């Protein structure tokens, strides 16, 4: 009951605000959606404490599909993993709803915005609580839809529409793999229920499946396909291009969907399917490789960007990489732990950035900021807390989780474990550097905005700063409070995260050499110190370095030319192919002989069919008698004949 209310409260809010927004007005929509989200968040908090260490149970809702051996019901799976996710989602969403009241105060369609946010939260909760792959997919597509609607929320801006479409299409690529994965799971296990899959996974280890004439390890194929879906949703290397563009949406959206919750769905998927991944070593190696590469790759781009939200977006991409390689090396708990701390500090950073943008009259370019820290002291302090948590300053949330991830990478025996460790440490330097750069450029130095803007700079109202404060508390203490997740015996998770019999990462990670433990701290100090030198002590240094390493700088600045490459290969390629088929195939052949001709004869047939209808009763009676006569004749000649 508790969980049913928890999951469906946001849906009710979305329906009320979305369909009756005009009737209840802006204020009414805000009260309804925020009120229901507070309820949901409270229940999620209660649920978290009640379910930690408890075995999984299922709350059935409705029957859904029964076709042959294929069964899917609506049900909520409640276990420590889903409880942690429900808590993260509901808690962040609740405060972001409240923040939006202030941030979107001047917008024209407030009920629509609140409805979309609540709808998103509902789908996300469905995603994390599903007990079969189809319901997971329902939530998965639902959050994709909500994300699309919210990125394109300001639909009069062409750039927002383009970004929304891009997000949707890139996700389709990932979903293609994901759907194949689900179908594959059904093919192999004859079910899509988690319980049955998890029980059967060990038995399927080392079995093979024949694809394209070669035999492959069954579980590797399945895990690989599912991970393709995760890559799309979580913006991993190759399918990451949509995430920075998604910043076209309002900032609360970036905080909720593109930082704290939706983009982490991929990590959740890997952790949820850990019983499958544990028996798929090659897939795990791939996960580690992609995760570690993304962590470094996104961080390099973050170094050079000037849009404050894009810097944080690339940072999100990079942190997601950390989570993935944690899962890849078998430390799923560390991955989820990082997901959980990351949700707090990244939401905080985004909302803080929103507060800055709000203060600077919608300016997002850091080159036109600077010197405002005295004017927005609360935001400034909150941004520092978020930054310290992100770069892993001792005592803050990110410190615990990032260290755990890196230690696990060192301790693991995965083929790419050390690759991941070294890339992770390097990325940590870069993380500290670009985070410091963001702070220095935004708040310190000479004011670079015009006089008009500087004159208007003001601290945000309490409805925005209070959520910042709450998330800041989370960014400081979430790490301490969640340390139980790293328990080597796995009592916290009570089997909801599975580790194979040979997987001792969670134990070994506590016994790594001292220098491994110290490495993240050194990396952080180095990065932060360098950024101080670059942007405060010697402000002309960045330009000199950029020109000295021009090729490298333009590679990073232009995001490794991924967008250009994709545009060249896929967009233009597809367009050329489409035009060729359209002109040559469709218009030239099919239309000429097919539809145009068929349409004409259809119309002619329709005209004739109408003409039969004369309106005279004796014609009608005649038709009936002829009909009977014809049927009897048919019978006598063809059936008995």
């Amino acid at each position, binding site marked *: 009951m508790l969980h049913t209310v928890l999951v469906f409260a946001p849906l009710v809010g979305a329906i009320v605000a979305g369909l009756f927004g005009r009737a209840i007005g802006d204020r009414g929509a805000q009260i309804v959606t925020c009120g229901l989200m507070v309820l949901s968040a409270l229940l999620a908090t209660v649920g978290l404490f009640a379910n930690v260490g408890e075995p999984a149970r299922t709350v059935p809702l409705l029957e*859904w599909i029964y076709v042959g051996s294929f069964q899917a019901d609506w049900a909520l799976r409640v276990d420590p993993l889903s409880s942690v996710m429900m808590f993260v989602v509901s808690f962040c969403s609740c405060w972001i709803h409240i923040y939006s009241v202030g941030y979107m105060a001047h917008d024209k369609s407030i009920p629509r915005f609140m409805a979309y946010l609540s709808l998103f939260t509902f789908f996300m909760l469905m995603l994390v609580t599903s007990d079969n792959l189809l319901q997971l997919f329902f939530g998965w597509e639902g959050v994709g839809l909500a994300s699309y609607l919210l990125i394109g929320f300001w639909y009069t801006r062409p750039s927002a529409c383009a970004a929304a479409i891009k997000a949707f299409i890139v996700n389709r690529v990932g979903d293609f793999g994901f759907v194949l994965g689900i179908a594959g799971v059904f093919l192999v296990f004859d079910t899509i229920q988690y319980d049955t899959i998890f029980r059967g996974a060990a038995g399927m280890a080392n079995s093979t499946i024949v694809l394209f004439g070669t035999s492959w390890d069954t579980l590797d194929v399945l895990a690989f396909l599912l991970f393709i879906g995760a890559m799309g949703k979580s913006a991993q290397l190759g399918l990451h291009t949509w995430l920075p563009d998604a910043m076209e949406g309002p900032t609360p959206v970036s905080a909720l969907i593109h930082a704290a919750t939706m983009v982490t769905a991929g990590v959740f998927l890997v952790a949820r399917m850990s019983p499958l991944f544990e028996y798929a070593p090659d897939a795990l190696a791939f996960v580690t490789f992609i995760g570690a590469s993304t962590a470094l790759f996104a961080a390099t781009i973050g170094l050079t960007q000037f849009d404050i939200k894009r810097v944080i977006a690339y940072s999100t991409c990079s942190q997601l990489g950390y989570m993935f390689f944690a899962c890849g090396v078998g430390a799923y708990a560390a991955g989820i732990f990082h997901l959980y701390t990351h949700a707090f500090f990244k939401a905080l950073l985004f909302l803080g950035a929103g507060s800055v943008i709000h203060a600077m009259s919608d300016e997002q370019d850091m080159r036109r900021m600077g010197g405002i820290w005295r004017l927005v002291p609360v935001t400034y302090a909150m941004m520092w807390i978020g930054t310290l948590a992100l770069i892993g300053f001792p005592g803050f949330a990110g410190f615990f989780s990032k260290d755990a991830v890196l230690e696990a990478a060192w301790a693991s025996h995965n083929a790419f474990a050390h690759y991941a460790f070294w890339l992770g440490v390097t990325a940590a330097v870069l993380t500290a550097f670009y985070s410091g750069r963001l702070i220095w450029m935004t708040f310190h130095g000479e004011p670079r905005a015009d006089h008009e803007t500087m004159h208007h700079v003001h601290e945000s109202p309490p409805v925005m700063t209070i959520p910042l404060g709450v998330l800041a508390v989370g960014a400081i203490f979430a790490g301490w409070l969640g340390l139980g997740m790293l328990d080597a015996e796995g009592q916290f998770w009570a089997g909801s995260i599975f580790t194979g019999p040979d997987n001792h990462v969670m134990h070994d990670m506590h016994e790594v050499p001292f220098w491994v433990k110290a490495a993240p701290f050194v990396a952080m100090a180095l990065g932060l110190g360098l950024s101080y030198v670059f942007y405060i002590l010697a402000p002309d240094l960045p330009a000199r370095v950029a020109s000295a390493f021009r090729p490298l700088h333009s590679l990073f600045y232009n995001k490794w030319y991924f967008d250009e490459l994709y545009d060249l290969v896929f967009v233009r390629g597809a367009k050329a192919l489409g035009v060729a088929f359209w002109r040559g195939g469709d218009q030239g052949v099919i239309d000429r002989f097919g539809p145009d001709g068929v349409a004409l004869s259809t119309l002619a047939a329709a005209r004739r069919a*109408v003409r039969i*209808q004369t309106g005279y009763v004796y014609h009608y009676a005649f038709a*009936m008698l002829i009909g009977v006569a014809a049927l*009897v004749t048919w*019978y006598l000649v063809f059936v008995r004949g």
Partner: protein
Amino acid sequence: MGFDLTPVLPELFLLVAGLVLLVVGVLTREGEAARVVATLSVLALVIGSIIIAASDKSPQLALGGHYVADGFSAFLKILLFVGAALAILLAQGFLHDRRIARFEYSLLVLFSTLGMSMMVSANSFLALYMGLELSALPLYVLAAFDRDNLRSTEAGLKYFVLGALASGMLLYGCSLVYGFAGTLSFDVLADAFGAATAERPPALLPLGAVVGLVFIIAGLAFKLAAVPFHMWTPDVYEGSPTPVTAFLATASKVAAAGLAVRVLMHPFGEWTAQWQQVVVLISIASMLLGAFAAIGQANIKRLMAYSGIGHIGYALVGVAAGSERGVYAVLVYLAIYLVMTLGTFGCILLMRRQGQYVEQISDLAGLSRQRPMAAAALGVFMFSQAGIPPLAGFFGKLLVFLAAVEAGLTWLAVLGVLSSCVAAFYYLRIVKVMYFDEAAEPFDTAVHPAVTGITAITALATLFFIVWPGPLLRAAGAAAAALVR
């Protein structure tokens, strides 16, 4: 057997309720009578449904073996009662606006429903004929209910004349079958013709009996409005008052389809090969004519007539399969068809300009701007009727086509899919007119709450069927299993 009347309780209840309401209607004040009787009639139908839902579903004979109550009849009766109740509710505002609000309307619907209820429970040709006529006579009157309107009286008369002809054919068929079998009872017929035993396959049906069966099918096809016995439909649908059309298009067809399934599957269930081709022919003709002729229509009620002809064609695909899966598919199809069609007529009843009901398709222009919810509902019904997933209509079609494929009639399923492609054109044209064409005049905003409510509920049911299809599918499955033993 004996004189146990318990299985007949729903019909007895409706009969007594109808007679009592007749008196109530006469005794109530002129202005009040229509409303009071309508309310009580709906109540009677609801109670009737509850009696059926609560009753024993195992097959029980009554009235000397002429009547059978089983899971199959229970499923259909609940559909019929719900359809009739909604038809009464839909009508009240319309009749009032047209100044023909008379209490007889509800009573006629009630008595006709009683006849349909007897039809789906018929276990002999005698009961079949009696039920059919009891359901048909009130329908003739209902079609001409707007008696000062030329088109309405014309509709009633045409329906009556052609209905009499169809009844004659049906009776002729019954007498032929009786002549060769020497019995009227469905239970005994099969044995009389030499049903399969452990030693031998079923005997060949006598020629005369098959000709009789063809005549019976023709009589039922008239009620179903299947080609070539459909000619009355467009004229009658257009001329009758719109709520009557809704009733004709839903309950009447459901009852006839139920009866046809029972006759073909129960006494003649072992001779599927003998009647399958006839049903297939009628089915193909109906699907094709329903698809093509509707394209040329300008009046939405005429369009619905052809659309209904097409739908019956699809339902007959399931009948032609001649299997339990087929019966199951037909039942699901009928239930979904009933809901979609009532909702569509609800939408048609929402279209008024300056107090006048309009029914041209071009009148729908601009509906989406002025009445976005009504347009959305009609859009849902149109997409659903066209069979677009994930709406309910898709699943009805999917099931009948699956049944046909399983029965080895793949080509019939392919034809069905192709004709539904053609049919999609005119459904989508309505959506296009609603959403893209400019309106000439504004629609009235005053609406009757019952019509709005029914439209909204049926639209939601159509839209969200996919979320919770279990209860309907289970009930239809049980009903099909009860018939095909």
